């Protein structure tokens, strides 16, 4: 390894931020993606901070963040550029002069933006699994070579500074092997209690130890409840703690719940997001009381 390239890695080390706890695995994954300039594919339960990761990486490395949200209708070409033939046709019918320059009708997409950014940027391709099954395949070359060809104008857009590409997936569709092979892959595990405490700590620096203990106790109990459609995750826990902190009454109820005087934890709406789960909890609580 040469000295210059050592320096480069040193400058771009991601170690988590003040508001984001990254496990060793995750740090390694991010640093590998930065150093080897390959996209990083992130999977994990909803609410474990996949999307947040890109924001935090961008913030901690001081790079601009470019986000491309994927929907079921998103096409790969939209990330490169779009040629608006319809409005050009319309303009030609209306006799607009703009029609003579094709560049007027080419709208750069997020990839174009990231490739031509003045400084190295972080490109987040969020929820890639939402798109059509062919979507990842259509981006293979672009992500590999970090360049693409614009047919309409005959120019080639190449990234001077290859962006750090972070891709998230919720597993709704399987991603093609060829695509996976071009990425590093990291699966965000559900945080263990110790990590969870760190996470709570960065979000609520002044929180009382006891409240955290009580809340975590209930939280993990709830997560272990069999048959929940969507077990609460980190983001729900953080929301719930915010609410608990704002409400002294609720804190008392929390203790009553732990002592078994009250069957349902307070403000449970922040933890469970669908009706079936809440019914399940109530039924379970009733059973416990009997």
């Amino acid at each position, binding site marked *: *390894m040469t000295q210059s390239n050592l320096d480069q890695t040193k400058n771009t080390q991601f170690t988590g931020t003040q508001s984001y706890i990254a496990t*060793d695995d995750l740090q390694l994954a991010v640093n590998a993606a930065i150093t080897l300039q390959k996209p990083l594919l992130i999977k994990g339960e909803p609410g474990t901070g996949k999307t947040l990761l890109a924001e935090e990486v961008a913030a901690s490395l001081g790079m601009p963040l470019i986000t491309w949200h994927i929907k079921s209708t998103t096409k790969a070409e939209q990330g490169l550029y779009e040629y608006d033939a*319809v409005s050009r046709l319309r303009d030609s019918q209306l006799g607009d002069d703009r029609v003579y320059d094709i560049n007027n009708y080419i709208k750069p997409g997020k990839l174009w933006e990231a490739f031509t950014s003045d400084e190295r940027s972080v490109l987040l391709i969020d929820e890639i699994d939402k798109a059509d099954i062919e979507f990842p395949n259509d981006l293979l070359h672009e992500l590999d070579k970090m360049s693409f060809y614009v047919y309409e104008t005959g120019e080639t857009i190449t990234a001077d500074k290859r962006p750090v590409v972070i891709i998230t997936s919720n*597993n709704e569709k399987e991603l093609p092997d060829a695509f996976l092979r071009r990425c590093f*892959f990291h*699966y965000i595990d559900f945080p263990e209690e110790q990590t969870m405490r760190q996470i709570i700590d960065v979000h609520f620096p002044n929180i009382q130890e006891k409240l955290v203990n009580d809340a975590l106790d209930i939280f993990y109990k709830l997560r272990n409840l069999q048959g929940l459609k969507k077990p609460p995750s980190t983001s729900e826990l953080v929301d719930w703690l915010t609410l608990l902190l704002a409400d002294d009454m609720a804190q008392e109820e929390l203790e009553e719940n732990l002592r078994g005087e009250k069957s349902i934890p307070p403000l449970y709406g922040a933890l469970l997001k669908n009706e079936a789960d809440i019914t399940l909890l109530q039924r379970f609580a009733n059973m416990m009381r009997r």
Partner: protein
Amino acid sequence: MFVKLFYTLRTYGVPVSTRELLDLNAALDKGLMRQPHPELSKQFPEDKDLWYFASREDMYRLIKLCMVKDERHFDKFDRAMADYFEGVDSLDIDELMAKLTDIPQEWLDLKLDPKNLTEEQRRLLKKYGSLEELMKALEERLKEQKERHQGGSKWVGTGGSSPFGAYGDHPEGVRVGGESRKRSAVKVWEQRKYRDLDDDKLLGTRQLQMALRNLRQFARTGSADELDIKETIKRTAKKGVLDIHMQPERRNRVKVLMLFDVGGSMDIHIEALERLFSAAKNEFKTLEFFYFHNCLYDYVWKNNQRRHAERTPTMELLQKYGREYRVIFVGDASMSPYELFSVGGSVEYMNAEPGAVWLKRVTDHFDKVAWLNPEDAAYWDYTHTIGEIKKLMQGHMYPMSLHGVEEMTEYLAR
């Protein structure tokens, strides 16, 4: 380098290609890892690649990052790593747990002659009072290990400090977790916490979710908004300026008829599957459930409590539901051959025609029929009727794993 590792991973079924191997080497080349570790250089004097890691955990992380591209393969990967590092085949805890629930009864029934026991075993038995208690303790520990992933001195099979290691040579094969480990740290790969993500395992809660997504895709085909070219040309010609017309997405909704085998050892699995399909219910145009017991005969029923009062003749099913209905049987297909092939073979009543005839009628009437079997596919060959029914289904019998459900929906959707 890492060629041996590469092939170990492949042996364990982790899909790795040259590309991944090159990436791993590139990652090392770029100095992603820290300084060479003194202990590692001692441990693997001839394999210099291994020195560059601060710890085995770091190496495990890096290899995992580069080599595995899907969490479904994490469990296979963990086992491969255990093999690569330790050079021992890891034992499957699940398999052992299954054995544990099957075997104790036999064990306890065995008349254990103290004369046949070794000195060691006798000492142990004494310590635990009886074999029964020993088994209980073992089960306890396995459970604990499964839940908390804790190792150390409680790890079953850790030589010396745990009785089970010593007990390990019992002919029935209670031997857990490999050799005795003097080093106390639990290796990450030994925790095998990704076992649930492996898609060949029978459906658990997570897999149910995944399978549900699969079913949704099965039920919903056709693309999003599309341009109605005919209408656009027509309108543009009429108006003289471009007038785009879009048409709504086309939906091809699937009709499903499900027949569940109830009243047997498979009830839990079947309930789970029923829940799964109910959850996907609004994705299908119609979804109907019926029940039968062991084998399909001349009637089925809809309400399990009132199965003797409210019956639906199977013939009626064939008349009522058109051939475009996709039929899914759910059951273990394990019965005595009489139940399948003989008149009067049913365990419940006198059937006029053998079950096989009824199954044949169903497969003849409907275009696509599949059988989902909660029984582990590895044991299918041991039960005669499973093979026979599979033949009747023209081979379309699928295990109740994520992979199986995937394959089944693929077949049914085609």
